[in-house]
């Protein structure tokens, strides 16, 4: 049985006097215990909103969340604020994009780590401090007992991200959501943080949802990859299948735009034409159609349904390589 079952999750932002906007438009996916699942896409495709919706951290006004998010059989979207707060940090952890602004600048790191342990495991201050030191040590922060007393501005970006990972994993959550955890860091630090994450997740059996725009990150760690476009999943496949044979033109475009070491010098990168701003609403066709090199008439006439091709899910009228599989997947 899956640890997390997301079914038909939609997040609609509505402001007074404005058209409602669906940032996430009927997303379904599963995460099994210990599995690493990637959510990939460019800015504005709904990655972060999906993660905030799962955590119940979206603002309460002006947002409509639909569908179900079942965690161990319990729908997180139906829990009360109090029940949800009890689960956050204990069962569900999250690591954010920007380690510089995601720590409280006015209290020492140690207090922030201890706070989680005191909150969820009822530890006394002294025990919590000991455990915090162990945790900092575990995430590779040298001299942890000294660092515990330091304020965030005394730590480097990489250190702070390590501290944040320590906080998120303090109570051994069964699901960790990492929302672009390396975007704000140096490339050298990125690799360290990623290997730390995958090592910790493997050791503790925690399931991981990795949210990123960086296919390199996904290639390194995820078992299964969901490619998002305009708030919908357009392709889902195992890591190897996806990279070996991208079927959706958007996935293919993302892969083609990565610079290659073995490409001849002077070769230009291959971008995806246009920007997210060119999207058409899914109701009238495929949101990606205006930017798609493979677009056919059908793409602007009717919205493509999710189709199954072996283990792969695909939402495209005219995929790369072979023609679209005929078997339609009923919305799970």
């Amino acid at each position: 049985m899956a640890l997390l079952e997301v079914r038909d999750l939609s997040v609609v932002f509505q402001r007074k006097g404005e058209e409602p906007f669906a940032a996430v438009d009927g997303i379904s996916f599963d995460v099994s215990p210990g599995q690493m699942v990637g959510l990939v896409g460019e800015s504005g495709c709904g990655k972060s909103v999906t993660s905030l919706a799962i955590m119940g951290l979206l603002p309460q006004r002006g947002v409509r969340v639909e569908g179900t998010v079942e965690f161990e059989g319990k729908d997180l979207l139906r829990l009360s604020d109090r029940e949800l707060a009890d689960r956050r940090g204990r069962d569900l952890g999250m690591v954010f994009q920007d380690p510089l602004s995601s720590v409280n600048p006015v209290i020492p790191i140690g207090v922030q780590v201890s706070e989680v342990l005191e909150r969820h495991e009822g530890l006394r201050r002294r025990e919590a401090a000991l455990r915090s030191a162990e945790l900092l040590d575990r995430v590779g922060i040298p001299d942890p007992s000294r660092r515990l007393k330091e304020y965030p501005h005394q730590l480097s970006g990489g250190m702070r991200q390590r501290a944040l990972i320590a906080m998120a994993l303090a109570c051994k959550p069964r699901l960790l959501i990492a929302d672009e955890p390396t975007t704000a860091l140096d490339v050298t630090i990125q690799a360290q943080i990623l290997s730390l994450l995958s090592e910790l997740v493997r050791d503790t059996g925690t399931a991981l949802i990795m949210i990123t725009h960086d296919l390199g990150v996904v290639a390194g760690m995820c078992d299964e990859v969901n490619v998002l476009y305009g708030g919908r999943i357009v392709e889902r496949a195992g890591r190897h299948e996806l990279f070996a044979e991208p079927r959706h033109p958007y996935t293919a475009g993302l892969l083609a735009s990565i610079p290659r070491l073995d490409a001849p010098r002077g070769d230009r990168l291959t971008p995806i034409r246009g920007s997210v701003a060119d999207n058409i609403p899914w109701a009238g066709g495929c949101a990606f159609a205006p930017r798609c090199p493979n677009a056919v008439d059908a793409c602007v006439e009717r919205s493509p349904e999710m189709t199954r091709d072996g283990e792969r899910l695909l939402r495209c009228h005219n995929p790369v390589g072979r023609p679209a599989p005929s078997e339609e997947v009923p919305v799970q």
Partner: protein
Amino acid sequence: MAIGTSRKERIDSLAESSASETGVSLAASAWRRLRRNPVFLVGASIIGLFVLLALLAPVLAPHDPGVRMLADQVSRATNSIPPAQEGHPFGGDQHGRDLFSRVLLGSQQTLLVAVLATVIGLGGGLTLGTLAGAFGGWVDSLVMRIVDVMLSVPSLLLAVSIGALFSSQTQFTVILAVAIVQIPVFARLLRGTMLAQRESDHVLAARSLGVRQRSIVFRHMLPNALGPVIVQSTLVLAVAIIDAAALSFLGLGAADDSVPEWGQMLGNAQNVIDSHPHLAFWPAACIIVVALGFTLVGESLRDALDPKRRR
């Protein structure tokens, strides 16, 4: 060799400058800039001087401020207002009491009123601002509408009205009136910074860890939102001094004038200002200088704590 040393020096000086920049807390860097700011130094010296005078006033005052001079010291020609003379550098007031001692002791009342009114106003403002900023929604709307109503009345007018509400005016009613006027200023300011904190990344991160609402408000939001409020409170000290003096001047202060207070002295000097302007001059000058001292400190503190101006 010479080149070697100059290079070393250069590197050392670079290291020094970088060491002084990295890992310095906001408070430490603000203090470093304040120490070199002449505006702050002038303001702080003024405040320091008056605090010292207020503390030492009972010892320094040559005479009891409530006791009248003997009749032989009062010349009939001066309409019972004794001129400056041996032992009475400023002369006496309308009731023949030593003016110098009264001005000196007046500093106690003024500083007491300023500090108490600011503390009470700050307490009220923090409570309301925290309520509004932490809960949002209808609590926020309710609190802010009350605050808006209070802010829409000119502050001195509001203070006078509140002061006049009490059946018998004392120094404490002055303090209360001035404090209540300051509550909406603090509340509005704190509410704004609290709302900004609510949207901040670290509060979101704290919520993602399941931290309790109480802890989010008091540990993660409030301490980060306090900076502007602290600066504001030093500016409010100056306003409180002036407002309190104005209330006393208008006769809404303590009815009993045996305890000297600058605003009241100023009010009493009104009738004789043509013949004896010095009776008004000394208390007025003191009020202006003390208020200026607090304003200078407040302004320079605001600049020092402004992150955009951090170097």
